[in-house]
């Protein structure tokens, strides 16, 4: 489950996030959480792309415009394994498998 919180107009998110469960007096119930993460945005951006090239993260791709491309991760859970540069024929030209993975809010540059 992922939620994008935006509060730019007036308040600004204070930078607190976590998990909660409410209250209960039953001792037979419990809640489980795993793979908790917080990141800055739901998009990944790359600059320096030649004309016609594409940026791909997982199965999602975006064509460059003005040398830059932005992929919206939509429902994909982060991290994604790698980020790729494709030419106009959708051939993978370069690929990076960063540690600790590709996260929303990451910015990348490509140097041909």
């Amino acid at each position: 489950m992922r939620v994008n919180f935006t509060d730019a107009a007036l308040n600004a998110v204070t930078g607190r996030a976590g998990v909660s469960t409410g209250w209960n007096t039953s001792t037979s119930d419990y809640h489980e959480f795993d793979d908790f993460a917080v990141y800055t945005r739901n998009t990944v951006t790359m600059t320096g792309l030649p004309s016609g090239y594409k940026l791909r993260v997982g199965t999602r791709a975006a064509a460059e415009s003005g040398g830059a491309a932005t992929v919206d991760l939509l429902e994909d859970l982060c991290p994604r394994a790698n980020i790729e540069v494709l030419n106009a024929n959708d051939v993978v030209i370069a690929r990076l498998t960063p540690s600790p993975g590709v996260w929303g809010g990451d910015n990348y540059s490509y140097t041909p």
Partner: protein
Amino acid sequence: MLRALSVVAALVVLSSNLLGQTVVISGSVKDCFVPGQEVGVQQLDIRAYDPASNSSLVGALRSLDTLDFTGSSATRVRWNSAAQQMERAWTSATALTHDSTSSTGNFSLSPPSMDNVLIFTFAHREDVPLYYNYQMVGGRSNASVLFDMSGGGCGLYSDVQNGGKGTIQRTASGLIFQDAFNRADGAPGSNWEIQGPAAFWSITGNVLKGKPTTGGLQQMLVASSVFGAARGEMVVQARMRRVGTARTTFPRIQARHNTTAGSFFRWGIANSPDGSTDEFDRSLAGTSTMLNTGPSYNGNSLGSSSNSPSKTVKSAAGRTAC
């Protein structure tokens, strides 16, 4: 039919040539003549060139990078021009050193030590318009090069260090905080600030568990020192599951904002997972968008449970949530 012809060039920019010293640039050339079957390309000529004294060759290669042979007619004209320029430059260029690939596609070059070396291979093949590849490498230390002659089709570019045309670099990281709870069982640790009884939370079997033992809202927040300054946007994700039969409590993820002390957005499995109401609940008004949803509650939950919701609802921003 074109005759097979292979050429390799290497280029070295030498700001302070260290006479007598050489570096070893080894590597291999791969192709996938049958899709999915990677093989070494043998008897391919690999050459090292000095970029500074072979600028026309470098320029032609850079031009080819930006052109598509299968593109428009105008693009193909430019591609043909660049290909001819590259071949002329290769014919007139003098290599620093060269090698021929072995039966497994391996090669080794020993050019003089210098700032940069262009490793270049080129061959005429009847089934390929221009069978070539190149890479600029640092020439001050030993290096390895992988040429994927399929243009990426072999899937050999596992990372930038392994080759590929160009370089990808991460210039800014979006990750603020991550915890997969994959550590020894026990308390959540110092990165977490527990509000309520600490005994409520534990890590067991690489999963964070919250077990109600007392009344009151049970919360576990990432320490404020981790986040730094306030921000206008962030994404929070987690996999979660409720185990049990009671319907008065449910797991949620949350983010806080500063209009009022203690106010926050919360999203989670809702109070009535049997389908009588929305499965996901958002407390308080605010601008928040459920991203992860898809058919996806079960796909991103920890696993099936009698309380796993399946009903589709709409989030505040209109995205489908399941």
